[in-house]
């Protein structure tokens, strides 16, 4: 079969080129005069990553920012795209939805993850219970979207239900319900999908952090007469502060980017669109790259403070240890 041979050859060539580049860098760094050796070492090893980042991240970011101030035919139009974003009802709905997502998903995922981690801590079958909750993370967002779309499926009252939830509602004697057509509750039902996925992530990280809280502290608290809830609030939670921040910020950033779930389940219709989805629709379907770029810029500005905060907390953590 010539295609497998061809692909294998490509893999080998790619690996060889990679090894060659690393080899050349190491050679140059080694040969550098002693006086500047440190600086050359740092520069040499950072160079490939820096160059790729410049080309793949910095340049497109600058170009997109400039694009955000143009109209559909490429001529500059000042702040028109931003005016559109904050006055058009559909665009405002998109921003509103994004805020709802960003507030609810991290909060719910982290709370459920934390609660689950605490309850199964040192329980029997802990590993099995953990992997059950973690499994949704292994599914792509698109796959999860399709699964839940089928779960929410709807048929009229009196007809045979094909969606799991409506089937249960029918069994309990309730009327079947359209889950994805009514705003704003349909956003909540979409959020359920993302919480389902991210809880596993939160749980795994927080479980490890909880195990890292020194046992002596908890025992001391118990000796002082604290009950389980007071132990949790006053000893455990402060002890896992770093992990909590990491989990919250990571999930927040992932939520700001959410696109696949919305696109797969509702294609952005019924007032469920979020910024990332709208950016795609505007840029590629409506032929308005300027508006898409403006939305991308807003998304970037929304993510920036969170990333900065994350970095600051991590640096403080490193200073403590």
């Amino acid at each position, binding site marked *: *079969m010539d*295609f*497998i041979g061809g*692909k*294998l050859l490509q*893999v080998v060539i790619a690996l060889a080129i990679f090894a060659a580049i690393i080899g050349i860098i190491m050679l140059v760094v080694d040969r550098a005069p002693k006086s500047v050796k440190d600086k050359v070492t740092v520069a040499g090893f950072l160079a490939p990553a820096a160059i790729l980042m410049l080309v793949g991240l910095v340049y497109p970011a600058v170009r997109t920012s400039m694009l955000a101030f143009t109209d*559909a*035919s490429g001529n500059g139009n000042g702040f028109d795209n931003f005016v559109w974003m904050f006055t058009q009802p559909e665009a405002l709905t998109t921003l509103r939805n994004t805020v709802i997502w960003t507030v609810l998903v991290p909060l719910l995922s982290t709370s459920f993850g934390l609660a689950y981690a605490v309850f199964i801590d040192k329980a029997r079958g802990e590993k099995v219970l953990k992997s059950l909750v973690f499994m949704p993370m292994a599914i792509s967002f698109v796959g999860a979207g399709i699964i839940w779309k089928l779960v929410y*499926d*709807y*048929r*009229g*009252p009196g*007809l045979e239900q094909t969606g799991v939830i409506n089937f249960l509602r029918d069994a309990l004697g309730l009327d*079947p319900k*359209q889950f*994805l*057509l009514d705003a704003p509750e349909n956003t909540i039902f979409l959020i359920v999908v993302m919480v389902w996925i991210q809880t596993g992530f939160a749980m795994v990280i927080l479980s490890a952090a909880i195990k890292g809280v020194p046992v002596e502290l908890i025992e001391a608290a118990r000796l002082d007469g604290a009950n389980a809830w007071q132990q949790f609030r006053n000893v455990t939670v402060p002890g896992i502060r770093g992990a909590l921040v990491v989990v919250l910020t990571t999930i927040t950033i992932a939520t700001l980017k959410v696109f696949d779930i919305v*696109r797969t389940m509702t*294609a952005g*219709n*019924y007032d469920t669109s979020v910024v990332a989805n709208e950016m795609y*629709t505007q840029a*590629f*379907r*409506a*032929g*308005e790259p300027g508006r898409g770029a403006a939305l991308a810029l807003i998304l970037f500005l929304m993510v920036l403070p969170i990333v900065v905060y994350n970095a600051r907390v991590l640096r403080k953590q490193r200073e403590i240890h």
Partner: protein
Amino acid sequence: MKKTKYLLPVATAGVLALTLSACSGDGGGGGSTAGSSDCSAYDTYGKHDGKTVSVYSTIVDTEATNLEESWKQFEQCTGITIKYEGSKEFETQIGVRAQSGTAPDVAIFPQPGLLATQARAGYLKPAPKTVSDLVDKNWSPDWKKYGTVDGTYYGAPMLANVKGYVWYSPKTFKDKGWEVPKTWAQMMDLTKKIADDKTMKPWCAGFESGEATGWPGTDWIEDVVLRAQGPEVYDQWVNHQIPFNDPKIVKAFDQVGDILLNPAYVNGGFGDPRSILSTAFAQAGQPVLDGQCAMHHQASFQAANWPAGTNVAEDGDVWAFMTPPVDESKGTAITGGGETVGAYKDTPEVQAYLAFMASADFANNRVKLGGAISANKGLDPNNAQSALDKQSIQLLQDPKTVFRFDGSDLMPSAVGSNSFWKGIVSWINGSSSQQVTDSIEASWPKS
């Protein structure tokens, strides 16, 4: 633990193996069968051994399998391998792919409006002279117009479909004594009669189609505009000589709404009118066979969506009548569509493929497999696999029929592939006709 030492390399090897198999798994239809079929008909296309032509289109599932079958002999005789890819996201992805430089060799556009956008952006190659001549020979001048952008000819039509059919079960109609309506007024009377009978709802519909959700609704609106307002208004509407929210168009929306928004009339087999949005278009006709719905409005290609073994005949399981005219004196007008085959490259093998697709050979091959028709004059109507296809071909080839291409396919893609669909969705979900037409009008590109 000794086991973990081997776990990592084995896992890595496993992942690599999976990746490689994913990369090499596709396109295995390289035609290595020892088919010694008659290749003399394919001599005009030359020999292009070992060459590949990548083709991208919206056609998926059964229709796609049939398409690949129809050019298998061409592949064997010319040595070209056709790598076919179908995707429901074509309308969005083709623009993305063209912009990013990864366009396919050939793209089959379901909308002339989208073809025009790509041509004006400079990505498409004009059609070779052989194709242009073939089209002059095999199609009526109307069809050639749909592939022409700003005076340059870009692509031959492929297949055609006749839209506006209303599918029904002849047995049910006979048992209940219902008659096929000859005018719109008669159809509305029949609708009311069936609703009052209360054994089933008169209409079932499904608009869900992923990113393209809403497109069957545009077919409804176009059928009513063409019949109730006439072909001249239809043309003005499509060419934006009247605004989208012109009172005539709003009236057409309301006329369709008399059916689609009425809970007594829809959605047979699925629930209330809003379930139209959550029902996939390919499954929406099923209640007609199950006796839960009387009529389903869909194009001729619905024939491919019935379960295997369904007898599509005037006295069979399911049949279709053409949406009747509002004013019988204005004559038979039908809407229909068709794909246009456009090319991003002009290599010899691509040109050979384009010539084949414009020929009567392809049309006859494909129509013989069923579920498709073509407006190609070289098509023998007797090749049609069903009586309905034969009827559709005759309608297309009849000079007395007023034929209009599907409106949303002719409009600029920002409307026809985006805001018109979304407008239909929010209209079924409760927005008023005026609101929806206003917002679609606002989205028409100002160029």
